């Protein structure tokens, strides 16, 4: 029982770390010496490493908002989990935790989808960076974690 609890908690923490890295790192699109989105657009020219703020188009701001929201909801679900762990009635289910976690996974999914559809396709060798991959990895993990919380029950 303790093992399951520990496993679920570690999974949650891993998801939280993935979301933090994916949201904070500005590496959703990389290409050669350029690395852009979500927050900065950095380039390594012959002079050095220059960063300017990413373009403030509507869809980038939407992706920013969705990633931040998913991070917040994952964090809320962690707090709800810890709270419900000590305060839930015996045999009860972790509904609040599950709801927040599933909402977080939905937000990550929406953010990643919007970015995939709207990212500019210059054709100049621009590929998806590691932050984008982490977002797509975090989405199914978050969903699975939420479903586990639905099934999980507090020990009698």
């Amino acid at each position, binding site marked *: 029982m303790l093992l399951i609890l520990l496993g679920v908690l570690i999974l949650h923490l891993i998801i939280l770390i993935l979301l933090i890295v994916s949201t904070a790192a500005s590496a959703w699109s990389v290409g050669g010496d350029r690395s852009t989105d979500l927050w900065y657009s950095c380039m390594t020219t012959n002079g050095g490493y220059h960063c300017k*703020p*990413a373009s*403030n*188009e*509507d869809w980038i*701001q*939407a992706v*920013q*908002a*969705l990633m*931040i*929201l998913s991070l*917040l909801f994952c964090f809320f679900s962690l707090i709800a989990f810890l709270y419900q762990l000590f305060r839930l009635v015996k045999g009860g289910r972790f509904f609040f935790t599950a709801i927040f976690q599933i909402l977080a996974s939905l937000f990550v999914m929406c953010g990643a989808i919007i970015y995939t559809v709207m990212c500019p396709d210059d054709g100049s060798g621009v590929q998806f960076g590691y932050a984008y991959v982490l977002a797509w990895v975090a989405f199914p993990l978050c969903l699975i974690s939420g479903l586990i919380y639905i099934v999980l029950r507090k020990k009698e």
Partner: protein
Amino acid sequence: MLTFLALASVVLLGIVPEQSQAIVIYTGWERHALVGSDIRLSCSFFSWRWTSEDVTFSWTYRPDGSRDSISIFHYTGGAAYVDNKGPFRDRLEFVGNPSRRDGSILIKNLEFSDNGTFTCDAKNPPDIVGRPSSVRLLVFEKVPIQAGVITGAIIGVVLGLLVLIVVIYYLMRFLVARRVFSLSVSKHGKKKKEGSQQRQIKV
């Protein structure tokens, strides 16, 4: 004591090396404006010397994508000379105050061809060594959304909805609990009466 301080400050100002006496010119970095509107390009300077009567301001304009600059404004000898032949004829106005070290100009009725870099150069004789400062003008059809407005709006709305849902949930629980509470009081009262009747019979 006071005279000593005054003397010391005068001496120190005299000793201050020539390099730090360079004039420093301030303009904005970038200006955004709608086509057809007016824009005020500000230019001011910092100089260790008092503002002299021979202070000069001059603005030059370099269109986007061009290498040549054209001079569009010059203030010298107490008089302002605005562009009367170039791209800004009849659209340029001097709105600065040279005695207050302000050499700002006003460009009216912006067009798309006004996109470019405006450079302000001010001289305050004998303090003439300094770098001109440039401000980039961007003319839009409609002002683009500022960074972070939509982000903040989406986050605010979702968090607000969350708070609302939580409040409604607890309110419903509280209301239902009150109704149930009032019901159980009447039931409890009836039970008590029955219990006391039974006891009396037994006795």
